[in-house]
């Protein structure tokens, strides 16, 4: 296989396989969760569960008070840096937007590539910081499983290979780009079977917690 065939395959068949597994997997995960159901709360409600549930879906993105933010500052900061970085890199880079346009039929403005490039570096730096903490902090050492490290790789490598493609590093461009796209596909394939599902299920989790708190009259 030469580089052109490789690139063609990852852009075609590879992408199809990955997308199907990704979508199918996410749907299955939602069904697995929702089919378990939640019993009605028969206690007399003090407040509205619905409004608090919806509110919590978004408010939980910010720590509940400044002392909590202070105590978890490292996690809070690095978490935000790489999430925002990922968002910029994935959704605001011109070639990525073209790709989305080919699927969705519409596009949106991009940000100049050098700036996205800067965000890519920020993302990788903060991901490395997160990894360092995971390897050294006693609590995270207790919690972490091989899946945590695997998912880290699944997240880090696409950013790295994208960066390397743009800067024409290591491999000839086509191979580098193909590797980048393949790494994204691998992430999509494993996504529904790892903690990456949090990207979608966190809204459910926040809703459940927020609605129960709201019924008790507590702001969560």
């Amino acid at each position, binding site marked *: 296989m030469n580089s052109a065939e490789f690139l063609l395959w990852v852009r075609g068949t590879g992408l199809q396989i990955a997308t199907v597994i990704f979508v199918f997997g996410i749907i299955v995960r939602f069904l697995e969760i929702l089919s378990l159901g939640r019993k009605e709360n028969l*206690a*007399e409600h003090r407040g509205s569960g619905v409004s608090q549930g919806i509110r919590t879906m978004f408010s939980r993105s910010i720590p509940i008070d400044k002392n909590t933010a202070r105590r978890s500052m490292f*996690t809070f900061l690095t978490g935000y840096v790489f999430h925002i970085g990922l968002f910029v890199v994935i959704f605001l880079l011109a070639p990525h937007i073209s790709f989305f346009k080919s699927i969705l039929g519409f596009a949106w403005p991009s940000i100049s590539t050098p700036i996205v490039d800067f965000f890519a570096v920020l993302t990788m730096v903060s991901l490395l910081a997160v990894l360092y903490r995971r390897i050294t902090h006693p609590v995270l050492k207790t919690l972490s499983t091989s899946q945590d490290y695997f998912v880290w790789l699944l997240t880090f490598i696409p950013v790295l290979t994208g960066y390397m493609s743009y800067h024409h590093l290591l491999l000839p461009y086509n191979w580098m780009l193909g590797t980048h796209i393949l790494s994204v596909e691998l992430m999509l394939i494993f996504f529904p079977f790892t*903690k990456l599902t949090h990207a979608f299920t*966190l809204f459910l*989790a926040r809703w*459940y917690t927020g609605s129960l708190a709201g019924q*008790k009259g507590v702001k969560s």
Partner: protein
Amino acid sequence: MSEASLEKGIQALKEQIDAPVAAFFSSCTHCGMCADACLFYTENKDPEFVPIHKVEPMRRIWEQEYTLVGRAKKLLGLSKKVTDEELQEWQHLVYDSCTLCGRCSMVCPVGNDISSMIRKMREGMAASGNAPPGLIGASTRSVEIGSPMGVRLPAVQAQIKHAVKETGLEYPMDRVGAEYLVLLSSMEIMNYPEYLQAIAKILHSAGKTWTLSSKAFEATNSGIQIGSSDIAAELVSRVVNAADELKVGTVISPECGHAYTAIRWDGPNLVGKKFGFKVQHILEVLDELRAAGLLKTEGMEDDKLTFHDPCQLVRKGGVIEQPRNLLKMIASDFVEMEDAGVMNWCCGAGGGVSANENADEIRLKAFDRKKKQLDGLGVDALVTACANCRIHLEDGLEDNEMDLPVLGLTEMLAEHLVKESDSSEEKANDISN
């Protein structure tokens, strides 16, 4: 209680996993922020105490039973089974170092209600026989005797006799049609008998009718603490039956944290039907009386006071403003501690921890968190509204050689009640000086 076994434990855990639990496990990213919010971790510094780790066995059951890949792995014999040894090991995490205070649930960035997961985990622990002996004892006494501490009706009647003599008031038992059914915790009956007298004085002065029940005087629910819904339901249904029989309008839960959670929020769900009566914490009742102008106090405490928020009352119970409204009636110098209100730090003794001898050292170390809140606040007294918090706070303060009295809010309010007749006016003036 039926025979415990690993199979029963695993079955219990399976039944506990609902959509919320599945969403929570799907969303946890192992970020560790829950540890930063947990006083057992922050003061004992044991990394194993990170809250989400307490439910790891349940997570594996979720994976193996309710996820595609997990079930596939199980079929192929690739999954790690939950064993009895593991559950035994987990007792230390699930009971010795957790009061179900709920701070972790408030800080989790993906919105996991971790403390509710730990409560569910206890169902599996109890059903498999892995709950601490102290709690098993308390539950057994609750079911067989009617009180976790073994308090029987004659003892309650003796305390009532004492109270009648002290206050000159009536303490009705089994009166039909009263507005309020008063419950008591064993801790109050044995250790803080002034509480009953305080309630009687206040309700009497407010012109409210009330009663005790000879069949259901106990508020403490050991079933909630050990994590057995069967036991919890049995204990709640005694109160429900009594309340229904006596046709009361409201059941009053006393100054005890987990008792409130048990009857107010878990109760109807445990017995499977809505209640035909209201449930209120004593502070909710007192605040209503205050708002209606029926709670008349006089005199102010000069001491600088602060309030410790019992976790089950405030964060888990939603009774947040009432203690403050009430304290401000009688406190001229009330200050809030750092993190006061919904995010206040648990005292460290509830949810079965104080009944569990294995947890003694951990519990006292966890008190350091409350100590840090008090350092530099410069208060003369600490006020709270939970008998268990009270005794543990006294213990911790004494352990740290801190000279700070701990006061119960209901008793304080009763002491400041405007007295009725003229001959007692002089007495009232003296007491409030």
